[in-house]
């Protein structure tokens, strides 16, 4: 019974933990501009993150080595440092976006400018990182974040023309108003939003934090294989809500206040309140995960003691680094840059940097010195290679498309 409860909890937190500000914004933007014609990308992204998280979780559980230790060991210090630089920058962008997301959601709830909420969000994130246990932190934000299910409920309440939605999803085409370049640019953005590297750093380091052993692998696999697809389902619901309400009204999403309009229309103030709670929890959880991830990557590259299971005094560099990252993120927000814009760029840069973290994990997952008999099976390797190609193509195409379309404008 206790075990079953653990599995259920794991799945629920995986759903709540999947959606962050990047998924929220990107899916709503895409839904309001392209309808459901990019839903297939979410499916590909979710399968990819399942594969990637499963592989890095297995490496962490079997060898006890988290992702960035492996990256440095396999790629050497020079390529490893380039990798660290890229990953760290994206983490920083994501931290900034998530803290901005918390503040924007609190503005929706209160009407008080988000800038005034930023210091509050910073303090709350830091306090939790400093003082709260890993498992509590993960479960609480995951469970509360689950209230984003209100998007799916709202979709039903809107009574959409299901046939038309399915038509958009299954026979994708670019509508007359939008350019083909923008379509593919947002395809990459959605892919990057689903396969954010920090999710993998966090997942593999979390496996070490919670002391996973080989016997825990089954549970981790269930969590990932159930939780992430359900999270992907939520993503599609976000896009569908925007496609049903905003697309026909000629509204293309640029702010969080537009993202919530369809849910308010469908479910009124109650649904809106639940949604804002869900957004705060999801972005708060993601802010914790990205802040921890930036600490993880630095500590693992340089071989410092790390982990929330250690007292701050026993992992001093790790904890100090995280404080610096949080302050840097808030400093970026203080310049007045639009957090939504930061979010939109962060998901695309995630896609660009993805091969750097994916390839070393794919290689080590095949290395018997680390993995013993738990090396990748044939089927996983075939899927792994297919995704290697997809990830490489997305990464290489991203910058030319960004230039050609003016970042999807």
């Amino acid at each position, binding site marked *: 019974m206790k075990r079953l409860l653990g599995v259920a909890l794991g799945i629920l937190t995986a759903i709540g933990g999947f959606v962050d500000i990047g998924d929220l914004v990107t899916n709503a933007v895409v839904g309001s501009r392209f309808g459901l014609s990019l839903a297939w990308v979410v499916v590909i992204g979710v399968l990819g993150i399942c594969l990637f998280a499963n592989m890095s979780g297995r490496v962490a559980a079997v060898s006890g080595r988290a992702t960035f230790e492996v990256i440095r060991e*396999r790629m*050497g210090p020079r390529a490893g440092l380039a990798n660290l630089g890229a990953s760290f920058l994206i983490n920083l962008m994501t931290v900034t976006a998530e803290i901005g997301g918390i503040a924007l959601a609190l503005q929706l709830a209160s009407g008080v400018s988000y800038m005034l909420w930023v210091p509050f969000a910073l303090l709350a994130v830091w306090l939790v990182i400093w003082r709260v246990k890993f498992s509590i932190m993960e479960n609480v934000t995951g469970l509360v974040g689950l209230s984003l299910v209100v998007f799916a409920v709202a979709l039903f309440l809107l009574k959409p023309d299901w046939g038309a939605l399915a038509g958009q999803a299954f026979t994708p085409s670019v509508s007359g108003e939008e350019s083909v370049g923008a379509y593919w640019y947002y395809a990459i953005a959605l892919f990057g939003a689903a396969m954010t590297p920090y999710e993998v750093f966090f997942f593999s380091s979390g496996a070490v934090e919670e002391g996973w052993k080989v016997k825990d692998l089954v549970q981790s696999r269930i969590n990932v294989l159930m939780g992430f697809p359900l999270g992907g389902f939520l993503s599609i619901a976000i896009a569908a809500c925007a496609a049903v309400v905003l697309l026909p009204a000629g509204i293309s999403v640029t702010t969080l206040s537009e993202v919530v309009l369809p849910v308010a229309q469908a479910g009124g103030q109650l649904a809106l309140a639940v949604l804002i709670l869900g957004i705060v929890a999801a972005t708060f959880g993601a802010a914790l995960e990205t802040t921890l991830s930036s600490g993880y990557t630095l500590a693992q590259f340089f071989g410092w003691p790390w982990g929330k299971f250690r007292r701050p005094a026993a992992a001093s560099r790790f904890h100090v680094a995280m404080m610096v990252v949080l302050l840097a993120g808030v400093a970026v927000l203080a310049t007045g840059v639009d957090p939504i814009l930061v979010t939109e760029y962060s998901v695309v840069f995630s896609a660009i940097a993805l091969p750097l973290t994916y390839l070393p994990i794919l*290689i080590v997952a*095949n290395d018997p010195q680390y993995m013993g008999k738990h090396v990748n099976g044939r089927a996983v*390797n075939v899927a792994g290679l297919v995704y*290697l190609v997809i990830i490489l193509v997305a990464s290489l195409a991203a910058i030319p498309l960004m230039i050609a379309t003016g970042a999807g404008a």
Partner: protein
Amino acid sequence: MILTDVLGSDVVDNSGQRLGEVSDVRFAVDASPGQLLSKARMVGIVVSPRTASSFLGYERRGITQPWPVAQLLRWRHRGSFLVLWEDIAVIGPREVVLRPGFTAYESTLAF
């Protein structure tokens, strides 16, 4: 001497003909036990004709997955060999000179 001084040095035979680059240095831990672990004695150097970046040591181990990454890296390191300490005349950061009549051994590991 520091290890990374040697890694990447050119390897030449006694007539000055270039044979490749030092891609790794092999040690054996097999002498009488010290305090915790025995001394690590240098066995020799691994010479790669093309590139010093060992990356993953695919050429020295029987790993063939993930295809084709493994195959590609193996191919980059084809023809690499091991030269024992006894056959090394000079070690320096620019150049490693081998003794006349050195023997090239397979660089594979016993994994």
